[in-house]
């Protein structure tokens, strides 16, 4: 996905061929090496390979997932060796980035919750006979993977995310001049 604002292009992609290594390193760091808390609180880390990263984790309850929840992170990365100026950029835009991320996370959560309510209501209507059996013993057998789009039933989710990220980046870049 690509968008142009002014003369700058903003690209969202699932498989980055250019930054593949960086991406893997960051993902591994965030999801495995760190003690991540998915409560939307910010985590900032810096090292020479990964650059400066601001990570915000959140989770959605999903009975079909392992551990009954699915975890996601929004990450803002500055891939630079210059620690001081990266940090300055982050400091200058702290509220903007933080609130920007929170905004999108809140959107996902809300959509998910309202979707869940609908689902519950329709479940109740269709399936009155199995009230409590639920997932108790069968639980582990019916784990199916569902992606974020299916979870919140918003086909446009990643388009929105792309547009939002492009907006945020554009705001930060403009402000940096």
């Amino acid at each position, binding site marked *: 996905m690509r968008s142009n604002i002014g003369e700058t292009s903003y690209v969202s992609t699932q498989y980055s061929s250019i930054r593949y290594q960086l991406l893997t390193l960051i993902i591994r760091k965030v999801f495995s090496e760190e*003690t991540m808390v998915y409560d939307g609180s910010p985590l900032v880390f810096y090292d020479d390979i990964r650059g400066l990263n601001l990570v915000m984790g959140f989770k959605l309850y999903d009975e079909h997932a392992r551990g009954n929840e699915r975890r996601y992170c929004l990450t803002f990365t500055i891939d630079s060796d210059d620690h001081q100026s990266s940090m300055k950029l982050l400091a200058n835009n702290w*509220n903007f980035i933080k609130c920007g991320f929170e905004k999108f996370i809140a959107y996902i959560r809300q*959509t998910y919750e309202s979707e869940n309510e609908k689902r519950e209501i329709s479940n109740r209507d269709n399936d009155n006979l199995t009230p409590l059996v639920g997932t108790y013993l069968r639980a582990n057998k019916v784990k199916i993977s569902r992606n974020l789009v299916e979870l919140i039933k918003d086909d446009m989710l990643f388009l929105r995310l792309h547009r939002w990220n492009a907006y945020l980046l554009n705001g930060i870049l403009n402000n940096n001049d």
Partner: protein
Amino acid sequence: MLANLFGKNGLNGSTASLSDSDSGSSSQYNSKPSSQYGSPTSINFKDDTSSILRPISGNILDHMSDDLKSKLFATKDLISDISLAYYDPKSTNSNINISPDSFRLLLTEETGQMVCRNNYRVVLDYVTPKGSYIEQIRPSELKEYIFGSPVRSSDSLEVDKIRVIPNSNILIISRTFHVSSKINRLAICLCLPSYYLPVVMEAWRQVSTWLDNTQASIISIISRLKKPPSTLHLQCDKELSCLLPADARFQFVSEFESIILALQRKIVPCLRSISEIPRLFLYPTTLMKFVELWFKDVFNWMELKDGPRMNFLSTLLAIIIVNFKEELKSSESTRIAIMSGNMVVSNKLINIISGILEPKYKGPLLHTDEDNELSTKLEQLDSIDTVNTSSTEIHMIKKTNSNSSISVSPASTKYQNSNKGWEIPRRRSAHSVASISSGESLAEVIQPSSLKSGSNSLHQLYASLSNNYGTSYGSWFNKRPNISQFMQYSSPSNSNESWDRAASIHRTNSGNSIQQLRAGFGITPQQSPSISEYDEYPWFGTPNSPHVENSATATTSNTTVSSASVPWTTKSITEPNRMYNVHIERDFQRISQTELLDDAFDKICKPGRKLECGLTVTPGNMIHAGVLEIEILNQDCVEKSSELLPRYTSYLRNYNSWFKLQAFPANNESESKVITSMKKDLSVYSYSKALLISLSTRDIKEVTIKKEYKNNTQDTNSFKLIQKTARMFHNGKPQANLSLELNNCILLIESTLKRASELLKPIQSSADTSTAMTQEARQEELLKLFKSIIYFKDTKT
């Protein structure tokens, strides 16, 4: 010394009973047979929690009028910053239970033994103040956040991390690093109250310098331990192959002490100042009212503080524009410091200076509802004014009752008219004016005005008042005691001073006084202000006095003062100097982004609706993959202003080296304080610059300190400091050796101000002439003039 410092720790945990059960600091270790672990409880380096903690620079907002607040900060109710809420006993926010100067420092080492649960050890755990909430988190929990999960990363990089500990209002800053290819990881971890999170980012240079220094001293400790095959090291190797022995803090007292002292003296004060001192808001030049009021403030200043011949302010502005404006914006080591005992006057000057500084706010300004109210009031007042002008009668000033007053209250903008014991003199003659002296009732004093003495007396008046220290400045705008009240509240301790002041006031009355000037302008004086108010009195919504000499002629110093100089008459008698009723959502450091983001999110992501935007698909080929082009409209991306406000602030109780523009009390040490902080800057920067403005003596000095390397090498150890001081303005006179550019700028400012003063003349007087300008044209020209001043440098280059 050692016993003194660590007296408590000799008892091994039992004295750390305050939080023994839940801190887990000692139990975990004491259960082990090896007693060398000891208890990693806090070291009692220096506990100065006995003194009551106060905001770092007093609560400067308490003494400020709403008007001034909105001029300086763009909001009347500046929300008390979260760290300040701690000081407020009424605060009900339970989140703020951590004192702003508390911190916890942990030095830990993780051994390479992944199987073992206790594969780490705490070398140092220092908490201040004792019993603080921060102390209650177990080191084992902190360790999880510091070192992460057991999944070890393959690279042995140094990692800095800042994060918030869930459910605790504590943030941790940690640095993990490896020493000499060992697999052991060492960590420096600093716990702070979580409201410092954005502040830590801003002060990252200081924090990371501290981390670097701490890391260096730990490495040096380790290398010293290694050198001789000491028994300790061997023992350590056998035990857990640790790099640092658990009792390192006993062996290297001075090292650890200096680490903590650096934290206490440098980092925590820095974080506190950055978070607790409110910053100025720089209005955009597009706001007409700002430009107008800026000019008025400048004129007010020139009349009252500079007098006819002094071009102190224009020189000062020129120096800032030519030499400082650009550097203030970009450099951390450039400062403007105003030294004065008078808070209100310094804040006025700061307001004027901040008008020309960058970076200006760019975003939208929201006006509050009061704006409409105000404009209707203004219309009413205008009509009153025109009625009065038509009267040609010469009124005598009668004061029937010393307590009755006409109030032009800045808050209500109500202007009560002549029926209450006062009548309004409508004379326009500048030669014969009426004056009421402050202490007497039934006073009818008519004196000729004499300009020359007027200027001098104003200067004297200022000099006599400017050096009073004290806390009784308060808000002049709301309380106006008459003289008897004044006498009551002047305490015995400063009664001498007040008599001095009284004397000086009487002196000025004999020559020319502010009141005279005002009366000469033909406007009803308000009730005479009490003596103590003289200094500030004409600032609020009062008329501008006529007799400020044409500033352009002031430079060509030989011209005699013409008594018929053009009076500066602004509409400000009716128009309160009240600011634009702008309300910016902000805290002490930042402008809130929530509203901007809410709007943008609605436009860009369209939650709850179908996303309609231009989509084009370019199919993939051999070279590139398929691309989905998504349209984002430019107008959706509103230009965003910098959220972080520059570190300019108003009057502070103490000099604060982290702020670039400030005013603070003048005393013998104030200059040296600034210079010391400049020298400290040189450890990071190669160049430091400051403008020192002393209001009491009317001095402007420009101090630069440079590092000069010997032998042209960049060896950090062989340099000397070169300090240059240039006196730009001394004893009320600009120095002769100013640069050409500076002189040009002064001339430009003066001619611009002259033109602006003509523009700001009240409409009715300019209506006489046929060249009356429309309001819009007037505003446009005013704006042009303002821009020509502030962009002086840009237009030249």
